């Protein structure tokens, strides 16, 4: 089912924990496919076909970071900063990176390793509304906030206003 993927593009947040069970789950991670019926709820519709990618794949880091199926996005949920004026590891101009983040564990098909990926929100400007991407993964209810993705993680920024999300490598999952 991709229904949640088709819903509230970046409004949910996911954290893939790093226990083996959750690492396993992280690998399942489904990803958004372009829908067509729900433009208001599905900005991905409007960008899935975009020809000009923000960035090309780099050696050992395959795929297009402006597309939802890029490997690092296994646990992301939000607007891709690569479509908003940022990059895979930088916020758009004038958007502040949040000090609080959540991490996922994603499998890199190039070297067959699991990487710890941090998803920092960029904040202080309102919704970028481009390249929404939800990738299902392990999540826990809000009584475990650091494992919960329904929270606006601009908590750590000057203004708690969400713009987009980056996906940075923090190392290899042990």
């Amino acid at each position, binding site marked *: 089912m991709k*229904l*949640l993927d088709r819903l*509230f593009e970046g409004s949910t947040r996911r954290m893939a924990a790093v226990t083996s069970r959750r690492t396993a789950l992280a690998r399942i991670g489904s990803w958004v496919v372009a829908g067509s019926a729900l433009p208001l*709820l599905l900005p991905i519709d409007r960008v899935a076909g975009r020809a000009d990618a923000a960035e090309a794949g780099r050696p050992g880091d395959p795929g297009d970071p402006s597309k939802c199926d890029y490997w690092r996005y296994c646990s992301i949920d939000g607007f891709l900063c690569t479509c908003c004026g940022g990059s895979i590891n930088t916020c758009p101009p004038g958007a502040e990176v949040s000090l609080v983040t959540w991490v996922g564990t994603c499998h890199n098909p190039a070297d067959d390793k699991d990487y710890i990926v941090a998803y920092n929100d960029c904040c202080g400007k*309102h919704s970028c509304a481009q390249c929404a991407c939800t990738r299902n993964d392990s999540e*826990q209810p809000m*009584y475990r906030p650091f494992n919960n993705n329904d929270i*606006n993680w601009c908590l750590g920024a000057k203004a708690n206003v969400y713009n987009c999300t980056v996906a940075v490598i923090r190392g290899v999952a042990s």
Partner: protein
Amino acid sequence: MSIRRLAAAAALVGALAPVGAHATLPEDTLGQETLPFPPEPHRAYIVDMEFENMVATRVTVIDPDAKRMLGMIPTGGAAPAALSRDGKRVYTADIFYSRYTRGTRTDVLTAWDTSKLEPLWELEIPTKRASTIVQRDALGVSDDDRFVYVFNLTPSTSVTVVDVPARTVASEIAIPGCALNYPVGKRRFASMCGDGTLQLITLDEAGKEAARDKLALFDPNRKPLIERGVVHAGVYYFTTLDGMVHGADLAGDKPKAIEPWSLVTDDERKAGWAPGGWQLMAVSPKSGRLYVLMHPDHHDGLWEDPSTQIWVYDLKTRSKVGTLESPAPVWSLRATSDDKPLLLGTNIEGGLEVFDLTAGKHAGTLPKIAKTPVQVLTH
């Protein structure tokens, strides 16, 4: 809108527009609508996060029978909303920034009149209001309308207790390791905690903490409980990701756990049936029936997925008594509290699916009434 102003407006228009002598249709007078009180039993309030903007958001008021919009309440920063028990107020917990996306943050509790849909008063509260996909139990009202409870997340968690008649913040109660504030009776609220307990806070007459009880309810590591439940006859019902219902009877002096029971048979579980959605459960108080969004081919990652399947249970017999089918996938449910109840479900196209629970069938759709509907409230 004062009469004086209306008269002024009419006068101004009159000046602009010469009026013929023998008009077949009479001149209209300008006015402003007011909704009846007490509210129609089916009136609903849709919390719309407007996700592609999320600064100025809204609660849209609708008539699910006539399938029409009755009005709207502008809110700030994806505000949670709650109705007073007497039906006279809609409370919203708003976040405002002086420059919309930056500047000075002001959090307020705003009290709206349910007939005029005008703000009656607001109270500044600590700038800690939780900013999440809107949770029903992020904003609660005591049974006697004396206190309003606001959930804070910074990410430390606490609850701001507002004294309504006094228009003051009575207290801020820390709930470390716990979340949300499920209202219980006149002077209590519960929170769900990461250690698998339900914590029950009792307030004194001043709205300050008087007592704190804990009830072991579930195993958060092996069978986490979904924090979005329903309350019926003093019992809060929740479900695990795989469909085991756990209940907490909070009607008595001390909280009691009820015997867990399953939403699915062994065969259904094998077939992968499990609950999922945002506000995935609703209860019809008069009939004591529970409505749950269910999907097949379950795995844990699908616990917040919308669904077209709604399964119906009798809370007395704890057995499945029926199924409802939605034409579009539904994410959040709410049932009305009257004796000709409707079940309302927000679909993923921004519309509202209406089910007649007396006839037990789908009774139409209010299309595209919201941009990002996440909760439905009824009186």
